[in-house]
């Protein structure tokens, strides 16, 4: 077998594992529900356009609303998909034939994670188009900022998917979903509340240090920066944020691989 073909063969297990995730995405109703929700938003935008959008700030508000809705819906879908991958495979005992192929356990983790991120990214793109296209652009926005926003959203999806998979091996599904959903939505505010409790300088510094080990999803959400018409991030900042997402994803996946390897099936 020649080298390129051999290289492709190495990724075949990942593709096979990922295929299953994609099939499940279309089989389940989650995507359909989110599309209906987004459809309601699109309907609302068209009604507003019929009434007439007189103020650019109103159009900007609608744009922000649509993009935020797409952002949240894509993350909700990714969370739902990722949180059930491993528990479902274990419960349904479909993991054994997969591992018997042979496919290593960490390959299963990475394959499923990649597929969850791909599903989330595709959903994000679709919902983003639904949220962005219908709204009239009555103020100026940076195209590069938009691209940075979307790329960082994918990074955010990857962190959430990795965390969901790691936690799915440690806590029950319901706890996993609620914990991560709450953290995703209000995690930054909760951290703010907690660190604000410490008044002494030393304790506060310690609290701030350890709080940095919890992922802050708001760092990867630049929608408001985009709709505020602010210039794109400098290259260093953008790469730093990508690295931020990559590091948290990697650590969560390492945790998942570690727990999965030691877990009896």
């Amino acid at each position, binding site marked *: 077998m020649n080298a390129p073909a051999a290289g492709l063969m190495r990724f075949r297990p990942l593709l096979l594992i990922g295929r299953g995730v994609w099939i499940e995405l279309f089989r389940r109703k989650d995507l359909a529900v989110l599309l209906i929700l987004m459809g309601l938003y699109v309907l609302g935008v068209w009604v507003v356009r019929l009434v007439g*959008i007189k103020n650019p700030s*109103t159009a900007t508000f609608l744009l922000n609303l649509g993009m935020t809705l797409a952002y949240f819906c894509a993350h909700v879908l990714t969370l739902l998909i990722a949180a059930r991958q491993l528990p479902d495979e274990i419960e349904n005992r479909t993991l054994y034939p997969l591992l018997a192929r042979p496919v290593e356990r960490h390959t299963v983790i990475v394959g499923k994670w990649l597929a969850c991120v791909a599903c989330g990214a595709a959903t994000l793109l679709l919902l983003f188009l639904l949220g962005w296209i219908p709204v009239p652009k009555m103020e100026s926005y940076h195209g590069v900022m938009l691209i940075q926003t979307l790329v960082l959203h994918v990074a955010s999806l990857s962190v959430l998917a990795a965390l969901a998979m790691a936690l799915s091996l440690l806590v029950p599904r319901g706890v996993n979903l609620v914990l991560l959903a709450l953290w995703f939505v209000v995690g930054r505010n909760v951290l703010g509340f907690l660190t604000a409790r410490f008044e002494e300088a030393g304790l506060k510094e310690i609290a701030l240090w350890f709080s940095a080990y919890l992922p802050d999803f708001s760092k990867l959400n630049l929608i408001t920066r985009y709709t*505020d018409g602010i210039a794109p991030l400098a290259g260093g900042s953008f790469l730093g944020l990508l690295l931020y997402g990559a590091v948290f994803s990697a650590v969560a996946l390492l945790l998942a691989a570690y727990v999965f390897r030691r877990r009896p099936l």
Partner: protein
Amino acid sequence: MSRSLSRIGIAVAVGLFLLVPLWAGRLRPDRYQGGRSRDVRDRAVRNSSAVATMLGEIRTSMSDVLFIKTERYLHSGVSYVPHMEEQMLAVTSETKEMDEHQQEVAEGEVEEEHEPYGEHVAKTVIQPKEEDFRGFIGDLHRKVKPWHKPGDPHQHTDGTELLPWYRITTLADPHNVRGYTIGGWWLKYKNVDEAIRFVQEGVRNNPEAFKLHYMLGQVYFHKGRQLVRAGKPESDPGVRDCFEKCRVAYHKAADLTLIQRPPAGPEDPERPDWTIYVETDARAALRLAVFTEQYYGQPEDALGMAKAYLEVIPDDEPLQRIIERLSEPEG
């Protein structure tokens, strides 16, 4: 080979993760100046649009909802239709108005009456009987909920109940400058050291916001005056420290104002974010920088500062009067 590469990769990832508190804190993409979402006029326009009417309460951002909460608690639960006159959009105008009210409160009563804002009668969310088609249901509503006749003077609380809302506002949005400025203003009457810490937190989160440095100066000044009223001489180190920090804060506010103010001020079409309200606060910062330099810094530098500022805002009459006074020969 691939195994050692993956081990290296794992080590790098774990190493970067352990050092996250050092490098991730510098990544603050939400830290920027201006922005349409933070513009007061844009918000007012948004909230008055047909979209806002259709979406109802949903249209207001979280910070607007929290602002409405503070208004409600200030009025002892009575829901008024937002009735702030436009000049109140400036920190200086709003705190001046509240200062007058707080003088009344300090004379003994928790709730004091005062006149409605301006010439307009502020309407209540629950309509009065003569405008309410609901009959006995409306009567019941007016009895069950806190309600005042729109034409009657408002009754304000002493502000204690507003404080948690300002704290929540700033925790939900650390870039809500108004939350820090007005919250800090209210807090200084209850615990001035806590107010200083609160406004300093606002300065850390928004180092370029001149209004926050201005409010920090206000709070330090308040603390200094409190110590003097308590019997400490002005030469006391604690008192001098307060006024020195006040001077430094006003200077910082003035420096930021000079950097950020467009040459034409609020008339500049390229800078719609620099409204007349921002200009009001900016001028106050410049005047107070001169004032504090005169009384707590180097009086000989105060005249030079005033003249330099007057070149930027040549039509500012208070600065002109300060220059005239400083230029008078002593004795």
